[in-house]
């Protein structure tokens, strides 16, 4: 696969390490009433969509940025690549 890095352009997927669902960005509040349940779901409960999937990739053999890649799990078509830090910051500001 080829991942179109927002800063570095098209790079071979071999340069990256796959991590998992992009929802891992949304770490729960440790002081929440039901923190144990929230963390359990955060860490272990995943959707497994046949189709578009937002997922985290780490450019380990490159610039070390974490990316949010939107990939179709059926066709491997990649429709969007974002810098994970931007995604996380946007989420913060949205709260």
């Amino acid at each position, binding site marked *: *696969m*080829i991942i179109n890095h927002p800063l570095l352009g098209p790079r*071979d997927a071999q340069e990256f*390490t796959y*991590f998992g669902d992009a929802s*891992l*960005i949304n*770490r*729960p509040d*440790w*002081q929440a009433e039901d*923190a*144990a349940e929230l*963390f*359990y779901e*955060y*860490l272990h409960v995943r959707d497994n969509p046949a189709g578009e999937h937002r997922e*985290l990739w*780490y450019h*380990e053999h490159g610039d*070390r*940025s*974490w990316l949010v890649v939107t990939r179709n799990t*059926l*066709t*491997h*078509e*990649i429709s969007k690549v974002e810098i*994970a*830090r931007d*995604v*996380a*910051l946007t989420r*913060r500001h949205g709260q």
Partner: protein
Amino acid sequence: MTQINRLPCGLVDQTTTLKFSFNGNIFEGHPGDTLASALLANGQRLVGRSFKYHRPRGIFTAGSEEPNALVELRTGASQEPNTRATVTELFDGLEARSQNHRGSLAFDMMAVTDLLSPFLGAGFYYKTFMWPKSFWEKVYEPAIRSAAGLGSLSGEEDPDVYDKGFLHCDLLIIGAGPAGLAAALNAGKAGLRVILADEDFRMGGRLNAETLSVDGMPGTDWAAKAAGELMNMSNVRMMTRTTVYGGYDHGIYGALERVTDHMPSSGGKPRQILWRIYSKHAILAAGATERPIAFANNDRPGIMLAGAVRAYANRWGVTPGQHVTLFTNNDDGWRTASDLQARGINIAAIIDSRSCDAPAQIAGAEIFMGTHVIDTSGRLGIKSIKLSNRRIVATDCLAVSGGWNPNVHLTCHQRGKPEWRDDIAAFVPGAALPNAMHVAGAACGSLTLAGALTEGHRAADLIISLSGKASHSETPPRAEAEAASISAFWHVQSDTGRAWIDLQNDVTVKDIKLAHKEGYRSVEHLKRYTTLGMATDQGKTANVLALAVMAEQTGQSIRETGTTIFRPPYTPVAIGAFAGRARGRDFRPFRLTPSHNWAAVQGATFVEAGAWLRAQMFPRAGESHWRQTVDREVAQTRKSVGICDVTTLGKIDIQGRDAAEFLNRVYANGFAKLAVGKVRYGLMLREDGFVMDDGTTARLAEHHYLMTTTTANAGLVFRHLEFCRQCLWPELDVHLISVTDGWAQFSVAGPNSRRLLQKIVDPTHNISNAAFPYMACGDVTICGGTRARLFRISFSGELAYELAVPARFGAALISVLMAAGDEFEAIAYGTEALGAMRIEKGHPAGNELNGQTTALNLGFGAMLSDKKDCIGNTLSRRPALVAPDALRMMGFKPVDLSQSLASGAHFVASGKAATTENDEGWMTSVTFSPELGHSIGLGFIKRGHERIGEIVIAADPLRGQSIAVEIVSPHFVDPEGVRLRG
């Protein structure tokens, strides 16, 4: 022996003679021959024995689809089994041997299995060898494995080198037949960066095998001219002997180039290169593969595909027989008769299953329309055929054509499904092609030359315009129209005699019928039950025929029956090519420590640690056992001073206004209050609450920290920290950089370590106990101004320091340290002594931090603060992880101190059986303690902290050992920590 079947024509250089051997017999051939064409030229029809029944077999095809003619090539370590003779280029001195027979090829003693065939039908494995159960592994399987099967391996290391390469292009054209050449000419002239790859050693594909004309010249001449033109274009890369074996995501293709397989030896070059080709567009012009018709005893040597028979005559100047017969269901097959007849070969008879007028008259040939071949005779090679009209015709070569299957394989590597076309009775690529792939020519079902040329040209037109360029050649190359009618006909019904479908796996029509009778309906099940379409040819000549028979049984159409999935590779690829240079010592990169060369000179032995090679120990003359060396290194360190290269520990430089807050969140224990100039032990958890890693972090300045990780986890921890920084807490002002390779670091441990360091640390820096106490750190200069960092930390439990210098000074520093330590009889110690001392001191390491242990297990439960958030904090409090009977890391010593402990032993209470139910924990690390003079161990045991003094059994059934051990504190040496503060 002479070349009795050689004709005075073809694309071989008959002025040069090459000698080769087959089963020890010396034959002659010419440059341009394949092993198959040369064997046929010499009248060698029998070339092998079949997989299961040991039936005599000959050459069946003229290409990479060959199911029968598998041979062993070369000798010694270079021996290569299961090589297809049809694609093996002849060279002078080639040595080939037939496979799968005991005794000689002609008198295979295993041919008796053919008589047992009634018992060896589909699924015989599963039915016959059921009882007794214990016989399967010891008797049946070894016997079957040695009776069935293909070639043998040399058992020696592959002496050849394999390489990998990367290529980029606008257009990859797969196949250099008429469609591929037409596309390449068009795209090349338009200025696209083109790669044209073909598995053959000569460009042209079927043009070289046929007698058709292009643009008014013989097809072979046109192909040679086109190849010459393309060769002169700097934007076109021509790759012969290169099989594009797989299509992957986003326009990436895998290709195998056979660089030296056609030479006597590789001469130092890589034998094969595995290319990864990045293409913007691709044209699949892979052509088509002919398929046979099944009839009784259709597997005898001399029975060949019709297209192959005329390919041998036209391209290689070889006739596979002197009295050729033809059995066909289509017009194309007739070409074989006319081509051979034109070369003076006697065509004995033409049998066409279609009940229509004969499409041509062939002088001297008897023509039987609406007729079938119903049986054949000839033990080691065909002698005659029997027709459905009861006629018997003598022949030494029966050419069979059941039609052509487009080579759709690469369109299916990304889940594409081929579609059935009734008019050509074959599967063609489905509508959903891989992104940016186009298919042209026979691969797309256009089975005429004119069609192939036009489609190739047009496909290139499309890509040229998609690339924003203009085509410079408006009309495709021209060829005359040809008859290409076919009437589907698959197999001749027969009550007697077996009709082969898959020659390579010995699957017959009967096997498929049997599988159907036994309830196998899906083609995927049929394949696995009968082994149809497996092994080196992947059923290229067999699959569609089998589907047709299956469809007939189920009453469905072939379209409804569907095909099995095509997966890469298209043709076999040696594992060595996938491995490339990554084998043996080069399996993965390894790093050397700054003192590596020095250690090697001292006679050190080395051990792999993560990505590094570390000095394991430094044996001296007179030390005959490793224990002597390790005990000396430990004893001398504890008595005076020892030096160890600890550069391999991961080092992460952490800076920023929020660095302290960041550390406080990634470590389980508190870091907010660490003072500048101090070091603290840090325990890092995963989010699931288990321990991930540990190490020390030094605060070098207000906003500047240096973290160390374990050697093995350096990369993992860095990745984790970047995740935390970028994804979890992007608002923090903190930056990370790995400086593992930037600093050389040495541990200087032992009571004389300060005195040693005072000799090299510049006197402006006071490192007395008062000024530089335990857990202090700071910048210093050494040896008169060289920048360095000093950390007063201890893994050994002794008064100890770690001294770091920029990596380029590391090699010099080890010599400086050893020279300064001379008066203290300083020694260098390796990872074994390091391990022994850390066990004596009770420090956890890799064996204890195995990803299944918690802070509580390690005795660090009190470190966890519920006053702050940190990775893993919440889930580390799950009930099961804090249960009262949780495992605790403890020390263990044998009750009988002369006994040696073993790691991996499990603890059970005294008097209880060593069973899973009674399991209370396990021993993780053991060593002989030079300090205590007996074996000691660390391990996990339930409620261990409440059980000090209790005797339990360390059971080790694997090694037949059971030792009574006492639970003790894990801190065997200096539990109060007096030494390291001294």
